């Protein structure tokens, strides 16, 4: 591993990721790989793949977590913090500007109309996430059963979703013990 990587280098690369990587996780991961593995050669393809897996198995935004993993392997805690600040700073500033405008112009008809459109699109977006995750993950009756039970517990019985995530993890330990992913 290149030991001459400085915190500033890390910051600049992740700032670039945070500024130009829009939307989808996969486009961002491709961007990461091109910058860090192929161009800068800070880590091997295998290390990067580990980082992607860790990012998905830990709480929070997977892409941020993959960044933390990479930053930590380069420069320990300082590197980890740097990747988060670099990745988050551009969108943080943009969000502040939008939030300011949102509160200020909320009552203007044009603003209301725009958010009426985006609101409907958000519902379609969440539905498409359900669809694409479902196609990938719900492969047998056990998985489908987990999904249906969670759905009913939230929409009919209004149980706490955090509790449902914890319970489904525990149920997973019992039901899927010894199975390979």
């Amino acid at each position, binding site marked *: 591993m290149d030991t001459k990587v400085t915190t500033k280098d890390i910051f600049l690369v992740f700032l670039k990721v945070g500024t130009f*990587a*829009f*939307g989808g996780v996969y*486009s961002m991961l491709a961007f990461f790989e091109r910058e860090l593995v192929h161009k800068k050669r800070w880590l091997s393809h295998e290390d990067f793949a*580990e980082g992607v*897996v*860790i990012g998905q*198995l*830990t*709480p*929070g*935004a997977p*892409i*941020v977590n993959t960044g*933390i*993993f990479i930053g930590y392997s380069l420069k320990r805690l300082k590197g*980890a913090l740097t990747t988060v600040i670099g990745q*988050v700073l551009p*969108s*943080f500033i943009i*969000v502040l500007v939008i*939030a300011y405008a*949102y509160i200020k112009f909320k009552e203007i008809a044009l603003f*209301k*109309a*725009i*958010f*009426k*459109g*985006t*609101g*409907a*699109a958000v*519902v*379609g*977006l*969440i*539905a*498409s996430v*359900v669809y694409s*995750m479902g196609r990938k*993950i*719900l492969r047998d009756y056990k*998985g489908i059963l*987990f*999904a249906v039970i*969670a*759905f009913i517990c*939230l929409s009919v019985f209004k149980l706490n*979703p*955090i509790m449902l*995530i914890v319970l489904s*993890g*525990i*149920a*997973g330990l019992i*039901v*899927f*013990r010894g199975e390979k*992913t």
Partner: protein
Amino acid sequence: MEILKFLWVIFYINLFTIGGGFVMIPLLQREIVDHYHWLTNKEFIDSIAVGQLTPGPLTIMNVFIGYKIFGLWGSIGAAMGTYLPSIIIVTVVSHYYVQFRDSWIVNSGFQGIRPAVIGLLAAVAITLGRESIIDIQTALIAAGSFSIIAFTKIDPTFIIIGAGILGALIY
């Protein structure tokens, strides 16, 4: 201190956001809208739109929520509450990652959590749909955004922008 309560909510929600940024949505909806009434469902939907509009992860929507409720300090606090759990846990996990990745507890737990999360998201899509699909036009926008995102490789950011423009033209 209402803002401390808010920071704590953001912190523990992110601790349980396992399996992708979207998992946060049912949890946030429950706490921020249903429980504490800090936002209406409508404002919550707008927060998701803003989170998706900006580059970077969807979780940045917490910053919008923080600003909306508590101003600048709310937004800074929300950013810390959002990313602190990640920093702590990933740093620890990075240290032991091979054991962690291969552990049966992690793997079987995830096999239960992943499908359950789909059920939770489906439920919240219905709740939010009741709020924002109010006529034929919004129903068409929702159906259009679903089909484009589900069946093409077009970035959702552009869909949200397009839907905003459509909204401005129609209403």
